[in-house]
């Protein structure tokens, strides 16, 4: 009795679990990655869907077989016990040949997508932007007309006075024209080289639509580069636990046409 209930239950659960994956919605909420707005994102999405197919098949197959066998063989009164054709050896072979090989192949293919993000350096003409993450906000810095960033002096940081980066305009000419912004404004279809600097503890830069996620590690100056292909406003959130305000640490990625971007830049630098 219990066996049959379990068999039915496990099959139902398996099928129900698969439904939202196929329909992309669950309780009215869309549960699928948003449309990608980057040049490299497609590779990741393809990788994701291939993996989803394989994982989904293995998942359903395993659960259904489990249910089937339990339904059939639970509580048989006596009866000679059949052994599975092939026995353990068959299992080992199957595991190695199919699952193992397939998963490894998957990894090989996937490493290409990874490479697109991390193995190629940013182009020389890429727009240089510095991102600083601190408890609990992102701030972005553009080099300004002189095209060079002023030096950072963490001890000079004065957030109440909008000196989020610890610039020293008094003594540092380079810093005087640096443009500081509360959101990341970039021109569309232009590569952006984002240099990441952590002010205090670990943070992370995550834009779903951009298929970009990268930690800010204090003391390590990391960088990512991407090209946004669609004008619009997208949320930037912190994904590395950074303290009590973590849930509220966000900003916006504002992708503009080149003209609008230039206008914006001018309006900031006045």
């Amino acid at each position, binding site marked *: 009795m*219990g*066996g049959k*209930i*379990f068999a039915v*239950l496990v099959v139902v*659960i398996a099928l129900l679990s698969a439904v939202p*994956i196929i329909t992309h919605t*669950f*309780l009215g*909420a869309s549960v*699928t*990655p948003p449309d990608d707005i980057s040049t490299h994102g497609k590779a*990741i999405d393809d990788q994701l869907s291939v*993996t989803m197919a394989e*994982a*989904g098949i*293995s*998942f359903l197959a395993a659960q259904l077989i*489990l249910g089937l066998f339990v339904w059939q*063989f*639970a509580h*048989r009164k*006596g*009866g*000679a016990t059949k*052994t*599975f054709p092939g*026995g*353990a050896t*068959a*299992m080992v072979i199957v*595991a190695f040949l199919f699952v193992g090989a397939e*998963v*490894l192949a998957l990894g090989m293919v*996937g*490493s290409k997508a990874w490479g697109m*993000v991390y193995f190629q350096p940013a182009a020389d003409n890429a727009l240089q932007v510095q991102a600083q993450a*601190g*408890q609990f906000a992102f701030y972005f810095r553009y080099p300004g007309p002189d095209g060079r960033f002023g030096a950072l002096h*963490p*001890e000079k*940081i004065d957030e109440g006075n909008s000196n989020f980066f610890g610039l020293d305009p008094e003594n540092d000419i380079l810093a005087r024209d640096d443009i500081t912004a509360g959101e990341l404004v970039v021109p569309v279809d232009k590569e952006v080289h984002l240099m990441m600097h952590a002010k205090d*503890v670990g943070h992370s830069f*995550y834009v*779903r639509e951009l298929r970009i*996620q*990268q*930690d800010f*590690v204090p*003391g*390590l100056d990391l960088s990512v580069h991407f090209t946004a292909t669609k004008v619009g406003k997208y*949320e930037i*959130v912190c*994904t590395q*636990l*950074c*303290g*009590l305000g*973590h*849930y509220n640490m966000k900003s916006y990625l504002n992708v503009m046409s080149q003209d609008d971007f230039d206008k914006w830049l001018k309006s900031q630098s006045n």
Partner: protein
Amino acid sequence: MSEMSVHAAVHAAPTSFIRKYVFSLDHKVIGLQYYALAMAAVVTGMVLSWIMRIHLVWPNSPVPGLGWLSKVGAPGGVVTPEYYLQLMTMHGTLMVFFVLTNAPFAAFGNYFLPIQIGAEDMAFPRFNMMSFWTTFVAFCILISAFFVGDGPPLSGWTGYAPLSAVGRDAGPGQAVGQSLWGVSIFVFCIASLLGALNFIATTLDLRSKGMTLSRMPIVSWAWFITSCISLLAFAVLMPACLLLILDRVAGTSFFIPAGLNVADHMQQHQGGSPLLWQHLFWFFGHPEVYIAILPAIGIVSHILICNMRRNMLSHKVVIYCMMAIGFLSYMVWGHHMFLSGMNPFSALVFSFPTLMITIPATIMTLIWLGSLYGSNLRINSASLFCLGFISMFVSGGVSGFFLAQPSIDIYLHATYFVVGHFHMVMGVAAIMGVFAGTYFWFPKMTGRMMNETLGKWHFFLTLIGTYAIFMPFHYLGLAGNVRRYSAFQDDFLVPLIPVHKFITYAALFTGAAQLIFIYNLIYSRFKGEAAPPNPWECTSLEWSTPSSPPPFDNFGGQHPVVYHDPYQYGVTSSTGDYLMQTSPERAGETP
């Protein structure tokens, strides 16, 4: 050390209450103590998770009674953002260290490993006692964080530096709370090392006559392999904790780089490496996952074989798979750090061994399924939980495909997909193993049977409930729902709140279902029907003890002699379709 053994050998059964039940040297009592501690921890951890779930979906409405429990953390019962993170940290730490490490490994292992190999006790009973009471001290230190300063730490169970290292400037709980956390984990490491040492020596040296390594039941193997893993894992976490504590109290700079401005306070440190902490922590942290799951795998296989009334296709292959997993578990820690600024090439280096773990995992799953084929599976609470384990193990396992690939991890890292993944495979699956073990061994541990009807209800509700909780986690992850958020106010998170509501209801439902288990446990302990010495007609040594619970020396002065491989089922013998390992009969195979 040898003094321990000599003494253990010469002293007789204790008479005083203290020596019998509190500071007992008897591995059975210590096993039960570990089990009780794990129960206390799991109940605490579950209540914390309820508060978190309630807060997530009704962020500004007070939780009844909480305002009275924690005036600072929840003024008027409304959980503050920092308090949410503090609860989350304590939930993770309690569950991973004091439940998943203690219950399947330390608790059942202590009780049944010596019996299964025909020993009278652990190799070093005094170490055994010490390791439990050290664990207990660690537990008290951790819990005390709730009552001092501004509460427990908020840096998560992974305690990433520098958030965990810079002290009070990092936020509430990061002062004394985080220090207590570090000390607690340090002490826990000592306890685990003592325990692992004890398990290994016991397995290698105290097997009774005829109990060759190849004749050990699969679950003893699981405990043995686990103890080898934890010996190396905790030996790395301990110095890591030491360095963390020094950074906090002695002003050293192991994990804290120069030029940090935390809340307008310049940190007087330089040159430290936050990644160093991550490396040391995950070098322990990933094997820890297998410390939790391998004993469960062993327990489940052991119980399934008994209930299928025939050996698995090959229980040896399963043992080899466990060894393979244990070995691989030391080459994959970097897959937790794909996005934390390691050399991008090393991400691939860590990715492939991770993917390779699917192979032994798949072999085990296939062997379980294949063994079910054509068996005479007996359905009872224990075997049902084993089936539930397999189902969960698969569900949690396949999501590993995704996270093992750095490219996909770019999108899914630090989302609820990860949370769903490890809760299923490491949390629920392991706990199902613990439940199975409880229903299976309860008669031996107490001399009474557990109530089967309640057991089945408990199983079905738990199965439905846990799937209802953790499957949607994966959907949320695919939608990019970030984890460790104490409220969902971002534009793309607000639409997902209905899903979170659903999960919260499921969590409360599942938690309520566990009351059935607790009631069953207490009721059966005192009022359950008396258990025959071998209720499940099982072959391994724990069922050949003269009484249930076994006498102080397990075999009543006898030294069991072992004649058979562990799983002689489906044979004809004077006892029926099975043959005890200790029975000198020769088995006649069934035609």
